[in-house]
């Protein structure tokens, strides 16, 4: 599973959204109504799924799906 798929899977688990509802460039807050607590859950899920260290608040609800994938890739996750 590549990083895109992992992020989509965590979004589905935490937010109960279908993959087609995820708009790659839109802010999560605006497109999926993500709140700050959900963002913590997404962050914890991605840390486990990608085995990567993420600082608190490194991922934000103002990020888009693509930006989150980019942050993870910058940590050498593929």
């Amino acid at each position: 599973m590549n990083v895109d798929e992992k992020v989509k899977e965590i979004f589905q688990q935490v937010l109960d959204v279908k993959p087609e509802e995820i708009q790659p460039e839109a802010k999560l807050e605006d497109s999926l109504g993500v709140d700050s607590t959900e963002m913590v859950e997404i962050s914890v899920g991605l840390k486990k799924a990608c085995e990567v260290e993420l600082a608190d608040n490194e991922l934000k609800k103002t990020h888009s799906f693509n930006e989150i994938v980019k942050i993870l890739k910058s940590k050498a996750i593929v």
Partner: protein
Amino acid sequence: MNKIAITGFGVISPSGIDKRKFWANVKAGRSAVEEITRFDASKYASHVAGHVHELDAYSNVSSRLLKKIDLFSHMALVASEIAIQDAGLDLSTENLNRAGIFMGNAIGGWLYGETELRDLYIEGREGVSPFMASAWFPAAPQGQVSIHYGMKGYSKTVVADRASSLMAIAYGARTLNRGKNDFIIAGGMEAPVTPYALLCCNTSGMLTHKNENPAKAYKPFDKNRDGFAIAEGAGIVTLEPQERVKKRNAHVYANIIGFGTTTDGVDRIEPASDGVELAYAINIALEDAQLEPAQIDYICADGAATQIGDVSETKAIKQVFNGNAKKIPVSAPKSIFGNMLGASGAVDVITTILAMENNMVPPTINYSEADDECDLDYCPNKAQEKEIKNALIINRGRGGINCAMVLQRA
């Protein structure tokens, strides 16, 4: 007090969610208390309870939100929706800055809290859902209802053990008396059928140990009573002042016309044995309602089924009603579905409204042997036909909390 109208209600109970089904079960005295099977409760001294079975069929809550909230908030949301629909309120036309929420519960959201605490000790910090912070605490249902409907007026959550929701409804009514809101939704919710919450209830020493026959375990005012059976559930009512009711030509089930509360100040669990402070609370409520004791047609009792609780409640009723006490039916319909702790007052209000509507006093079930010290008409085992204009509702809580409310049929 100026009378405040109850224009709608929603009940979530082991005896049903649909109000006709709820009333049919209550009227028939059909017990809904069962053995606890949600987890292994067999080693608890008391392991019987009333469970809500039909919540999903009535739920208006998304699966995404359900992950973030405890059962007690879920029941509050469903009961609020039923109450708002029942009252015919169109929230899109209301000034929601003047719409209040008054809720009561005794123990908060332990189903969620316990699961996450277990995860904390097993998996560590990151095993805990971040929603834990907002899911367990007693004001969580108030917050969720506020978010769901955008209701932003003066609101409160009351924590006063088993008297929580009766107090919440009374304080909601008083807030409307002061003109602070246009309307209020008020009531209570409780989800105590969880391992830790059940343990806490057990250690209070107030629960029945008659596990061998759950349906017959909770026996208020009976000589062989040994405490109550817990239950989960919720009750929500809509409260509106008279001018507004007239303006929108709303149906009124009943009016809240009086309320009184006192505290015993004798023990951290048990009430005072003499019933004096409870009698004082009843007298305050009657004075607030500008009624004489003889004008009360029905008393919906606290009926904790503890030795001291039922005797002191009986004494208090006798002190207030004197020679009339034995002529007024006194019943504890919660013996049918179990004691919903902080939600029980709201459900008592709803049960009393249905009793008024149907000219019928709901029974105290499992009554088989009279106690010399409990010698009133407890409407044993069978509903009694009676026209009810004015009713008194009594709720009490650990630590000697006494509450009394007077309802008048519209």
